[in-house]
């Protein structure tokens, strides 16, 4: 089944408490050298058929309407999932 990947990230100016907690965890585990961590979301939308531009446009609309909140998040990617 073909899939569309949608990636959503908190806006740069919005505080990301989860990312902050992860960053603390990394340094406790000895993974130094990493600075700030931002945590986003990745969605995989199954589609029965070829991923056309039209399908991508629909996914983009869904991403803006439901999958993200434009007040606090940016949709950073809407693309077909490459087969492994």
């Amino acid at each position, binding site marked *: 089944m073909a899939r569309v990947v949608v990636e959503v990230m908190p806006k740069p100016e919005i505080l990301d408490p989860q990312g902050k907690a992860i960053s603390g965890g990394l340094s406790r585990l000895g993974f130094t050298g990493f600075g700030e961590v931002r945590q986003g979301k990745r969605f995989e939308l199954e589609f029965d058929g070829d991923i056309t531009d039209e399908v991508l446009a629909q996914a983009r609309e869904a991403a803006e309407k439901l*999958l993200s*909140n434009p007040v606090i998040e940016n949709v950073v990617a809407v693309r077909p999932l490459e087969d492994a």
Partner: protein
Amino acid sequence: MTATAMDPTVFTGEADAEATDTSAVSVGVVTFPGSLDDRDAARAVRLAGAKPVNLWHADSTLDGVDAVILPGGFSYGDYLRCGAIARFAPIMESVVSAANAGMPVLGICNGFQVLCESHLLPGALIRNDHQHFICRDQDLVVENAGTAWTLDYTQGQTIRIPLKNGEGGFVATDDVLDELESTGRVVFRYQGFNPNGSLRDIAGISNERGNVVGLMPHPEHAVEAGFGPEAGSGTDGQGIFSSAVRTLVANG
């Protein structure tokens, strides 16, 4: 306290029907899957002298109610984002159009998140800056005693009501925050302690018209002596519900 006294059905069963008064004012309380405080909100409505009406998320009509409350809880398990799924529940279409037509609408905690996701109120609520769930009795300043839900308070009055949230940090752009401040739409502000990192200590806001109000703390848990915060009156939340009743009576 006996087990019977803890039983929530004591407040919402048949005994309630007998106790319900004949007031012409009715206030709907929406139950979403995962709503938690719908019964407390309905009880607060009744104690304020109005008739609570249970509304179901999957219905599309408001059953002729005069006002609507979106209660606290974890609608749809807070999946995706708090309030994000509830915002598209069938009943929300009616709530949004009624709100735009001037009906008093109150969102408490999760209900506030639903109002923001619905764009009835600006901004958004994000995870608390300290990353923990917090539950405490919280002091608030009533910054605008002119909305449909705050008429019974005095401007600048301090009230103490419970607060319990994990994602209560109010955020918006500086432009939006400035506009809220300059137009009196910051309705409640945290006093003494900011429990969740909300920008400018904002605890509750309203729309331009003042009929739609959302706040993070829980007035419905402070409406009866002996059950609200121990310090202070314990009933500081009453004013929210009595304000709406007064607004509706005044509007005929």
